[in-house]
C-alpha cells in the first residue's frame, strides 16, 4: 500500500488530462445518443414512436433475455466446473474447444441452423423421405424461425462468455472450502449448490451480463427469427417514421433499464464479502468420472461444441464448396480478409494499450470516482449497433466540421474529413465497443498476479522502464495475449458499426457477408463467413496451445 501511495504522489497534470480524455472519448457514443434523443424534443414536431407493439416487444425481449441468460449460465458454469473439477474422456480437448463457438457470429449461426432445420433443409427432407409425406401440413416439426429457435441459437454461441469467466475463476480458486465441506459430510450436489455456486456468483454475473448485452444489441439474428424485440421497434421508428430521435429515445430507455439491472446486481453483491484466497497449497484435485458418467459428460459437452461450432461450420463449408465450384471465388473476398485482419489487429492493439493504461490508473488511490464514469461506457454495448453507429457518425461529422472551420480560418482551405468515414472512425468504434473486454481481462490478470514482483524490482533499484519491460510485461503477457485474442475475435465479427462507419470502397469479411446475404445470395456469403470463423478460431486455438485461455 505504501508503494501505491508513493506512486500516487507522483501523478502529474498530464496523466490527469489523459484520464479525462479517455473518459470523454469512451462516453462519446452515449453522449451522442443522448443528444439525438434530446433533439427530438427541441426540433420540429416529432413523428412519434410506435407504441402499440412496444409493450409486447419489451415482453418478448425480456423472455429472450431470461431464457438465454439462464441457459448460458447453466451451460457456461456447468461446463467450466466439469472441465476443471472432473476428469473424463476428452476433457483436455474440450477445455479449449468449448471456447470455439465464440468465433461464430450469431447472425451466421442463425443462418446455418435455419438452413439445417427448415422445410427444405437436410433434416426435414430426410424425415419426409422416411414418413413418405410431401407437405409441411402433413407432419409436425419444430419451427426454427421462432422465439424458441432464436433463444437456442443464441445460447449455443454465447455461452463461452460465461464459460471463460467461470473457468478462470475455478482455475484460480483454492479447493480448501470445498474440501472442508466434503470433509464435514456434504455430498457433491449439496457442495455445488451451497459452496461452489454462491462463490462463483461474481464470475457468473460478469459472463452473463456480457451475454445479455450481446442479445440486446443483436438485430440480425433476431429479425431473421421473427422475434418482436425492442430493437425491431427502434428500427421501425427510425426507418419508417423517419424519426431517428424517437429511435434514440427508445434506445435510451432500454439503456436505463439495463443500467438499473446491472446496478441492482452490484448493490446486492456488496452485502457479501468474497474472500478469494490464492492458496495454491490446497489445489482442488479433479476426480475422475467413472464409466457411464464420464461418457455422459463427454458426449454432452461435445454436443454443445457441435451445436455452437461444428454444425454451423459444416453447413457453411458445404455451401462454400458448392458455390465456389459453380461461381468461382470473388477476388474481393481475399481483399476483405486482408483488411479485416489489419483493422482488427490495429483495434486490438489500441484496446490492449488503453485497457492496460486504464487498469493501471484505476489501481491508484484517488482515481476510482472519475473512472466509474467509464463503466457507463459499457452500456454502449447494449445499443443496437446501427443506431450507435449513426450517433457516432453524427458526432464525428460535427467534430470534422469544427476542424474544417478552424483550418479554413487559419490556412484558408479545408482539410476534408479526417475522423469520419476513415479507418480512424472504424478503429475508434471498435475500441469504444470492446475496450471493456480488454480492460476487464487485464484488470483480472493484474489482480491475480499481484504487485509483489514490481515492488521487489523497485526495492532492487529498477527504473520505471526497466520495471515495465523486464517485470510487468513479461509476467503479464499471457493475460495480454488472451485479452488481445478476445478483442480481435469481437472486431472480426462486428457488423453494424463496420457497415456504416467504414471508409468508401473498403470491405471487411463481415460487410462482405452481409452484402451477399442481403442480396439473398446466401451461398456467395458462405466462403467469407467461413473465413470470419477461421480468423476468429485461430487465436482461440493459438491461445489454447500456449495455455493462455486455460489460465
Amino acid at each position, binding site marked *: 500500500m505504501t508503494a501505491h501511495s508513493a*506512486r500516487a504522489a507522483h501523478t502529474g497534470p*498530464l*496523466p490527469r488530462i489523459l484520464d479525462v480524455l479517455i473518459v470523454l472519448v469512451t462516453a462519446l457514443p452515449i453522449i451522442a445518443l443522448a443528444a439525438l434523443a434530446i433533439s427530438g424534443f427541441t426540433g420540429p414536431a416529432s413523428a412519434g414512436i*410506435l407504441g*402499440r*407493439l412496444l409493450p*409486447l416487444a419489451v415482453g418478448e425481449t425480456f423472455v429472450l433475455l431470461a431464457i438465454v441468460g439462464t441457459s448460458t449460465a447453466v451451460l457456461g458454469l456447468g461446463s467450466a466446473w466439469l472441465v476443471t473439477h472432473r476428469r473424463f474422456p476428452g476433457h483436455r480437448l474440450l477445455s479449449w474447444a468449448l471456447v470455439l463457438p465464440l468465433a461464430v457470429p450469431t447472425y451466421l449461426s442463425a443462418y446455418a441452423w435455419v438452413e439445417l432445420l427448415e*422445410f*427444405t433443409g437436410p433434416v426435414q427432407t430426410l424425415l419426409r423421405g422416411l414418413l413418405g409425406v*410431401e*407437405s*409441411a*401440413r*402433413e407432419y409436425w416439426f419444430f419451427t426454427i424461425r421462432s422465439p424458441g429457435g432464436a433463444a437456442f441459437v443464441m445460447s449455443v454461441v454465447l455461452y463461452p462468455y460465461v464459460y471463460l469467466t467461470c473457468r478462470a475463476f475455478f482455475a484460480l480458486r483454492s479447493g480448501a472450502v470445498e474440501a472442508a465441506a466434503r470433509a464435514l459430510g456434504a455430498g457433491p450436489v449439496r457442495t455445488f449448490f451451497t459452496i461452489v455456486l454462491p462463490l462463483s456468483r461474481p464470475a457468473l454475473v460478469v459472463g452473463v451480463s456480457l451475454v445479455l448485452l450481446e442479445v440486446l444489441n443483436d438485430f440480425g439474428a433476431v429479425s431473421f427469427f*421473427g422475434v*418482436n424485440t425492442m430493437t*425491431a421497434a427502434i*428500427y*421501425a421508428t427510425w*426507418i*419508417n*417514421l*423517419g424519426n431517428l430521435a424517437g429511435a434514440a429515445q427508445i434506445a435510451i430507455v432500454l439503456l436505463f433499464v439495463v443500467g438499473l439491472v446491472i446496478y441492482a446486481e452490484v448493490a446486492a453483491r456488496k452485502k457479501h464479502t468474497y474472500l478469494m484466497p490464492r492458496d495454491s497449497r490446497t489445489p482442488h484435485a479433479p476426480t475422475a468420472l467413472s464409466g457411464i458418467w464420464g461418457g455422459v459428460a463427454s458426449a454432452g459437452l461435445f454436443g454443445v461444441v457441435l451445436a455452437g461450432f461444428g454444425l454451423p461450420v459444416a453447413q457453411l463449408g458445404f455451401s462454400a464448396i*458448392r458455390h465456389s465450384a*459453380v*461461381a468461382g471465388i470473388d477476388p474481393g473476398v481475399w481483399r476483405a480478409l486482408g483488411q479485416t485482419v489489419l483493422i482488427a489487429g*490495429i483495434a486490438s*492493439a*489500441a484496446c490492449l*494499450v*488503453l485497457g492496460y493504461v486504464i487498469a*493501471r490508473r484505476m489501481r491508484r488511490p484517488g482515481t476510482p470516482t472519475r473512472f466509474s464514469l467509464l463503466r457507463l461506457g459499457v452500456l454502449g454495448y447494449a445499443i443496437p449497433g*446501427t443506431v450507435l453507429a*449513426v450517433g457516432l*457518425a*453524427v458526432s464525428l*461529422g*460535427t467534430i470534422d466540421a469544427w476542424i*474544417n472551420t478552424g483550418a479554413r480560418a487559419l490556412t484558408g482551405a479545408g482539410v*476534408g*474529413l*479526417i475522423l*469520419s*468515414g*476513415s*479507418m*480512424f472512425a472504424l478503429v475508434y468504434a471498435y475500441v469504444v465497443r470492446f475496450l471493456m473486454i480488454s480492460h476487464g481481462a487485464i484488470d483480472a490478470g493484474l489482480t491475480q498476479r499481484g504487485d509483489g514482483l514490481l515492488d521487489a524490482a523497485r526495492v532492487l533499484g529498477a527504473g520505471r522502464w526497466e520495471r*515495465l519491460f523486464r517485470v510487468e510485461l513479461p509476467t503479464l503477457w499471457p493475460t495480454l495475449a488472451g485479452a488481445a485474442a478476445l478483442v480481435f475475435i469481437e472486431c472480426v465479427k462486428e457488423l453494424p458499426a463496420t*457497415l*456504416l462507419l467504414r*471508409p*468508401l*470502397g473498403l470491405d471487411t469479411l463481415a460487410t462482405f457477408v452481409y*452484402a*451477399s446475404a442481403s*442480396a*439473398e*445470395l*446466401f451461398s*456467395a456469403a458462405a466462403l467469407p463467413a467461413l473465413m470470419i470463423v477461421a480468423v476468429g478460431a485461430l487465436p482461440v486455438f493459438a491461445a489454447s496451445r500456449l495455455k493462455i485461455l486455460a489460465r
Partner: protein
Amino acid sequence: MINPVLPALLGLSLSLFSAAAAFSQTRTVNIYSYREPALLAPLLARFEELSGIRPVVLFAKNGLVERAAAEGENTPADVILTVDIGNLAAAKSLKIGQPIDADILAPVPAIYRDPDRMWTALTLRARVFYVSRKRVDATTMSYEDIAGPEWAGRVCTRSGQHPYNIGFIASRIAHLGSEGAREWLENVRDNLTGRPTGNDRAQVQAIFSGVCDLAIGYTYYMGLMLTNTAEPEQKQWAAAARIIYPTNANGKGTHVNVSGVVLGAYAPNRPEALELIRFLVSDEAQAIYAQTNFEFPVVPGVPPSDLVASWGEFTPDDTPLIEIAALRAEASRLVDEVLFDDGPQR
C-alpha cells in the same frame, strides 16, 4: 509507467493513412449505395468500360442518408443509389441532394421522378401475389381479395414493418382511406398462417413447403430464384409458385415501388456523377437492369426480360409515388396499431 505519446502516435498514423487513401489519379465517382454490390456489378462494369470512370461503392442497408447528412459539405458522396421511395423521400428532406440536369431526366416519365429534380427512379418492381400452382386456381385477383374469409390460414408475407411492405400498405391507404386500409390490414393479418418472418424468397419457399398458398412479394425475386444456378434447389421452390399481378378494386393497377438515384449536394466529382446518372437512364443500362435483375425498366420502350414478359402484362398503379411516400409514416403506425407483426389475432 504510462506513456501518453503512444496513443497519440497511433491516432496520427491512422488519420494519415485515411488521408492518403483519398488521393487517386484516375477519374472516379463515389457511390453511397443501398443496393447490394452484386446487383450493381454488371452495370458499373459496363459504365467503367464506356467512360473510363472508376466507381467506388459504399454499401449499407440503413443510415447512408444520415451519414451523408452528418458529413455535410465534406462528404465524398457523388451519388446515392437507393431502393424504396422512402429513402428517396428521406434524402430530399435531409437536403443531401441537388437538382439533376433536366435533359438527363427527360427519358423518365414524370410520375417516376421528383418534381424538383432531386431524385429519379431507375427501375420498377411490382408488389404481387405469389400463388401455389397446385392449390390456387385464380388467374386474376385484386388486393382486396386476400382479406376475404376463404384465405384464412393461407397467406404469408415478411414483417409488416419492412420498407417493402410499408410502401405497399401506404398505397392501400392512398386507395382505401385510413379506415378502409385498417379494416383490410386487420383481415389480412387474421388470414396469415402465423407471424410474419423471413424475406421475400422465404415466402416462395413457404408456398413450396405447403405452409401457405399465397404470399406477398416483389416480382424480381421470382426471376432471381428461377435462374439461380448456384443454389439450383431454388428453381424447384420457385416452380411451385406463379405470379398474379393484383389490381385495386377502384380500377387502379398493381402497386409498384422504385429504386432510384440522388445527386449528392456536395458531389466532389459532379461531372462524373452526372455521366453515371445519364448512363443509368440510358437504354443500355435499363436493359442490363431488366436482364440481370428482372426489374422493370423505368424508361418506356425498353422491354423487360423474356422471363418477366412470360408472366404476362400488367398495368402499374399510376398514383404519383410522392403521394404514397407521404403516407409511409401512417402505414407504419397502422402496422403497429393492428399488431400485424404479432400474427393472426383470432
